[in-house]
């Protein structure tokens, strides 16, 4: 799944995650704009994109904290009714980020949250993809994460392609070069 050229993978790694610097670091004052010293004090909290946080974590420069989309409140909402939690608002790449960040923060429960959320929401996606009219889906789609939208689109586009085929219409498409008149040669 993880693919260097996968645009969704790149976007997922762009999500901001909270991190705490372990050491004073010079030259990265842009993370902490409270003074002009262009350095970060140990213990200061910053928000870093995941790809940077991961690298700094590997070099033991920062400690990655659990992002707000996996906080207690979200978990409670997921336990209560996962299908109607607005995950997209919290993190458009909920599953991807959770999957990547779990080993970094050493939180063993994230995996379970992801699984429970997906198990419940998968059914909702399945039902909606097969039944809902197109107008009714806009509201529903706004709750889904990118991964779920992809799944939903996969189901819908194949169903639409089938319906189109069944309705018929022109079986052969004319190539655009055909029928174009050649310019008279002077």
């Amino acid at each position, binding site marked *: 799944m993880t693919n260097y050229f996968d645009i969704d993978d790149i976007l997922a790694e762009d999500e901001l995650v909270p991190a705490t610097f372990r050491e004073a670091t010079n030259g990265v004052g842009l993370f902490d704009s409270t003074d002009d010293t262009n350095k970060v004090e140990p213990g200061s909290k910053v928000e870093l994109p995941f790809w940077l946080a991961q690298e700094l974590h590997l070099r033991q420069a920062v400690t990655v904290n659990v992002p707000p989309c996996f906080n207690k409140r979200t978990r409670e909402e997921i336990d209560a009714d996962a299908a109607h939690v607005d995950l997209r608002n919290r993190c458009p790449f909920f599953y991807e980020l959770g999957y990547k960040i779990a080993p970094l923060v050493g939180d*063993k429960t994230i*995996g379970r949250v992801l699984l429970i959320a997906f198990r419940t929401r998968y059914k909702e996606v399945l*039902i909606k993809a097969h039944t809902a009219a197109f107008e009714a889906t806009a509201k529903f789609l706004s709750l889904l994460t990118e991964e779920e939208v992809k799944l939903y689109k*996969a189901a819908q586009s194949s169903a639409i*392609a089938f319906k*189109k085929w069944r309705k018929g219409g022109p079986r052969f498409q004319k190539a655009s070069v055909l029928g174009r008149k050649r310019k008279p040669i002077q």
Partner: protein
Amino acid sequence: MASQSDPHGSAFSAAELEFLAEDEMVEIVPNIRMDPLNLISGDFGPFRPQIATQVPLWLAVALKKRGKCTIRLPDWMSVEKLTQVLEAERDSARDFQPLPFHYVEIARLLFDHARDDIPDIYMVRSLIEDIKDVRFHKIGTGLEIISERTYAVKLLNLSAMEVNIVRPFVAKALETFYKLDSPEMIQDAERRPDARTQAPDRGPRRPLRPR
């Protein structure tokens, strides 16, 4: 093979499946005299007026278009057979009736090109539509069972078109479940307790490699 029409959709487009379905054999009754055709896929004919012979669907359609034959309706497309199939489909919530692998496509091609060879065409058409709807509904409800303990989905007697329509969705769903249920994400101790409760309710779909 990527689809020509929609690179992100099914592995085949519907038109490509129709192309594959054209290799199915049908019986025709020619009204012309013609020598056997020796093609790479086999020898067809000889064609004698009023003597039935087996040819691939594409050839049957081509001859039919030129008014050189009548196509005999396949057995499974008779009203009685289809009524039986429809009833059986409605009776069982899980199993699919055996129909030709390309039944959707064959039916469509025959409806398009050989409507005068089909007795009770409206009846046959609506029966096939009904069968298709029942089966699609069944597939939809059947897929709800997929969870993190599904490693494979067994779909006996499913037709080419039906498989093709659900393929992108099922593949993506299984992939995500597999990823989220990987051992690094979920520790074994917490996996066990509810593994037993859901196991019996799996119907015709069961994991090939239960953990």
